[in-house]
């Protein structure tokens, strides 16, 4: 068996650790009033953690193609869908936190939130993109959508930019961490731009000659 076949379940399990740790910490707080792991504001902690991991997994998923092209390790591509789906998984938890814990299904408050607050507008748009990508991540959708599939899944770049903007706009003053994500994303996107430019010049050259 190839290395990737062993690696995949290991990464799958590892990707669940943050969720498990969060569930454990929140249970301790709920059952024993022990806020050691989640802090005095469990709601804030859950919101932060789920959002942070959604963005982090999105960045990791975007690393797959550069790793593949730079190292020539083609099998790594087999991790990409799973990593993307984990980003969606944490984004879904993040979104549910907002829906249930922050607003308790108060539709008016949520609609107002989405319309009035740019960082929530962007966050919601990002979540919708991730949902569309998650729903079309199966083989059936790939087959049915054909060439359109790739066009659709290029929206992952929009989602990543949206995620970073959402993070940037929500912090009160200390932009150290969102800036770090912006830099990482800029590098990851720069690869794509560079490759696109190369591809184009490779295509046009023979026509000139």
């Amino acid at each position, binding site marked *: 068996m190839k290395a990737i076949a062993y690696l995949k379940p290991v990464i799958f399990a590892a990707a669940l650790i943050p969720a498990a740790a969060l569930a454990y910490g929140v249970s301790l*707080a*709920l059952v024993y009033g022990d806020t050691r792991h989640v*802090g*005095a*504001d469990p*709601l804030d902690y859950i919101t932060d953690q789920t959002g942070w991991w959604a963005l982090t997994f999105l960045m990791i998923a975007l690393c797959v193609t550069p790793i593949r092209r730079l190292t020539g390790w083609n099998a790594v591509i087999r991790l990409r869908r799973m990593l993307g789906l984990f980003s969606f998984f944490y984004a879904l938890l993040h979104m549910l936190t907002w829906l249930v814990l922050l607003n308790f299904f108060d539709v008016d408050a949520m609609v107002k939130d989405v319309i009035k607050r740019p*960082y929530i507008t962007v966050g919601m748009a990002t979540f919708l993109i991730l949902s569309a990508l998650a729903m079309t991540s199966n083989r059936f959708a790939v087959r049915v959508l054909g060439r359109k599939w790739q066009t659709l899944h290029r929206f992952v770049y929009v989602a990543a930019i949206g995620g970073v903007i959402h993070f940037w706009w929500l912090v009160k003053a*200390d932009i150290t961490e969102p800036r770090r994500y912006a830099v990482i994303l800029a590098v990851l996107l720069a690869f794509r731009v560079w490759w696109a430019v190369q591809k184009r010049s490779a295509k046009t050259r023979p026509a000139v000659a």
Partner: protein
Amino acid sequence: MLIKKAADIRSSEITPKSLYLRRREFIQASAAALVAAGCGTLAGDDVAAQGGGLTKLQNVKKGSAFNTTEKLNSYDDITSYNNFYEFGTDKGEPKQSSKNFKPRPWTIAVEGEVVKPATYQLEDFIKPYTLEERIYRMRCVEAWSMVIPWVGIPLADVIKHVQPTSRAKFVEFTTLLDPSRMPYQRSRVLDWPYVEGLRLDEAQHPLAILAVGLYGEVLPNQNGAPLRLVVPWKYGFKGIKSIVKMRLLEKQPVNTWQRMAPNEYGFYANVNPNVDHPRWSQAKETRLPGLFRNHPTQMFNGYDQVASLYSGLDLRKNF
């Protein structure tokens, strides 16, 4: 041909009948626990039973009429969740990074429009006044709240003592500026030192105190040792910590957060459920350590007695 037999259910996986019959009870109990955890607070005891092993404060007058009877937040919660950017922007950070901070000896300068400008040693500054316990709600601008048993001195008494001139209309407070002792002042997250201000009549309101203690002991470093402002009808950021200077002024000072983001943070910063922060609603709050943001926010944080200070003032504009 081998026909596989379905795997038997192991006996360990079978729920005992007695438990099975009580399944509804179990589910109800779990649900009740969840609801209790979400609505109420999870921890907290009476003042006498808690503390952090710091120096006990003597001769503290108890039973203030301003005290709330709501359940107190635990000492642990109050001292491990702090917005004190001088010691880090993560609310869990100040507890650790302020550990070696030495709040004594400490001097406080009183300047500006006063008859007797002077610099006091902390002990001399506090000495003329009676220490009082004040159990107040604390509402953070970030939409969470706690109930905190402070020990402090009425700010009005201090102001009377330093004798403002007739020109004095405002009070400005300044936090210590010393990056060697407050490590995060090396960053440029805020425009250091932290500055806050009150209108003179606000500062003279009997609810306003300068706190020197928590849970009957001296103030822990992460809560603003040795001396901080507490104005319970305003958002928490007005409660400037580790004060080294008090200046009486003719003109309205500009407080740090207002300078940072004037569209988000004003000079008044009165708790107001009807005026949202541009980025989030202020209608509700999370009463820590609750799991839901379901606690309705009250006008002036429930301290209606300050309303007369603002009659005729448009609180939407003067947020």
